[in-house]
């Protein structure tokens, strides 16, 4: 049984290059902001200052290699999720960003060559469970290695905290 949190995502692509580090996603100086909606106004402020104003629910971040390198800050995936980003597709992820995104319930898929096929603003249909992407404008289909069972379980629960509570409940 699939939870609603993993239904397919349809949204516009926001294209980024290789090695987008955590300071490009959210700068260190905003980490003391206690309110995520305030912090989210500064998401991608350096590479794409218009991002937080123009992003729409279910939009998709598309990036090259090593997305999210650097700091352990969970605020990086958290501000994207706060703004309604539906998922992140990248050629590869830095390990901390990958783990943090799953922990907060933001789907992340590794899709080889995704930046070669997707242009900024294209509409994408993403099947999280199958790790498959259809580009509406070109009809091209891309796919990556499906997520592991454990990762899917955490995402389906809505993140690691919800997953923890679910596991705790089931053991009672």
């Amino acid at each position, binding site marked *: 049984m699939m939870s609603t949190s993993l239904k397919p995502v349809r949204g516009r692509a926001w294209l980024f290059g290789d090695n987008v580090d955590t*300071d490009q996603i959210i700068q*260190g100086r905003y980490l*003391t902001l*206690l309110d995520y909606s305030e912090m989210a106004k500064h998401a991608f402020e350096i590479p794409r200052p218009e991002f937080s104003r123009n992003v729409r629910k279910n939009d998709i971040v598309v990036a090259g290699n090593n997305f999210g390198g650097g700091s*352990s800050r*969970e605020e990086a995936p958290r501000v994207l999720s706060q703004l309604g980003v539906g998922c992140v597709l990248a050629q590869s992820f830095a*390990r901390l960003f990958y783990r943090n995104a799953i922990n907060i319930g933001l789907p992340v898929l590794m899709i080889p060559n995704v930046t070669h096929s997707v242009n900024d603003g294209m509409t994408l249909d993403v099947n999280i469970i199958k790790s498959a992407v259809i580009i509406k404008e070109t009809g091209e289909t891309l796919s990556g290695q499906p997520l592991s069972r454990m990762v899917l379980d955490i995402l389906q629960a809505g993140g690691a905290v919800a997953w923890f509570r679910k596991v705790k409940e089931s053991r009672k």
Partner: protein
Amino acid sequence: MGKTLAEKMLATHTEKGKASAGEIVDASIDLLMVHEVLGSRIIPILKEMGVKKIWDPTKVLVVNDHWAPASDTQSAEIHIRNRQFVKEQGITHFCDVNCGICHQVLPEMGLVKPGDLVIGSDSHSTTYGAFNAFSTGLAATDSALILATGKCWFRVPESMKIRIKGQLPEMVMSKDLILKIVSDLGVNGANYRSIEFHGPTVESMSVASRMTMCNMTVEAGAKCGLMMANDAVKEWVTTRNPSAQWTPVAPDKDAHYVADIDIDLDAEPLDPIVALPHSPANGKPVSEVEGLHVDQAFIGSCTNGRLEDLEIAARILKGRKVHQDVRLIITPASQETYVDALRAGYIDTFLSAGAVFTNSTCGACIGGHLGVLGPGEICISSTNRNFRGRMGHPDSKVYLASPATVAATAVKGVITDPRRLI
């Protein structure tokens, strides 16, 4: 098949006592270090989880270090939350704003020993690999789960082996070596992997120099950077935690490594390295950037703010002046380092040279306070990251280097090979 350091260290923390690369294991944590992220993010998550009492208040270290003392009302509120949490939970190990940077104070307090599994809510938690312990950074949600259960899942990393022999030349430091290694590997060259450092160079290194190397393994994407326990580490642990029982961990001879790298510093002498903006993997020999004007020079951080870093800076600055167009800011890694530097006379040397000497904090390294860069400014820094905007304004630029290169640059006003000032 034999086992790597990472496999052995994780195995002893699992119920079955086994761990092989690629496998996912549940492991018991010996120590969790959390800093301001406790107050800002972890406490709200614990509330959401309904956790009233943490798993073991003697196995947690809380440090107020990133904005220490508080730089604004928000960081002040975070510090208040941390202090309250420490009291409510009866947490044994607490460092308020008068202690120093987490990665320095944790070993100073004797809280890491060979074979331990230490987790920190900070990416530079790889530092404790210098003590022959498995250590890595995780973030708020994982920290909250560890606070609740004392356990965490890990994918056992594949390991790469880097064997280093030969001498570092005069004025060339372990920072130059790790900048070279990170640049050779690339920013994700060790992604998800454990880097094992071996060889006589690492065997004879000081604790401080080893910490600098393990600290920066994360800049190549590594999950951890591990070393065997040398005499300096054994002495450190025995002095700092005399009652602790521990056994050094060594890899098996037939352990499997996904990469084997040999570095011979005698055959190929290392030059001072400078990592150009905006990547720590952008390291070049200092000769390629010599003569470039800087506005600020910074010595400090969990990477290079220790006594030996201040010692080499003091040697260069003794009897000299900081260039009139440059501000040199020096931030010790801990209060202990501060006191030691004071007694050794280094602070006198720094102040006479015209430097600013601050209290211990993460401060300038994260663009927090005590040295934030303005638009267009250029900084040479002994820290670990030069991402765009890391130390302040998005239009500022950071060049990473050793404390020796930073000190020499501060004197000359332009990027300078420290060997010119011997």
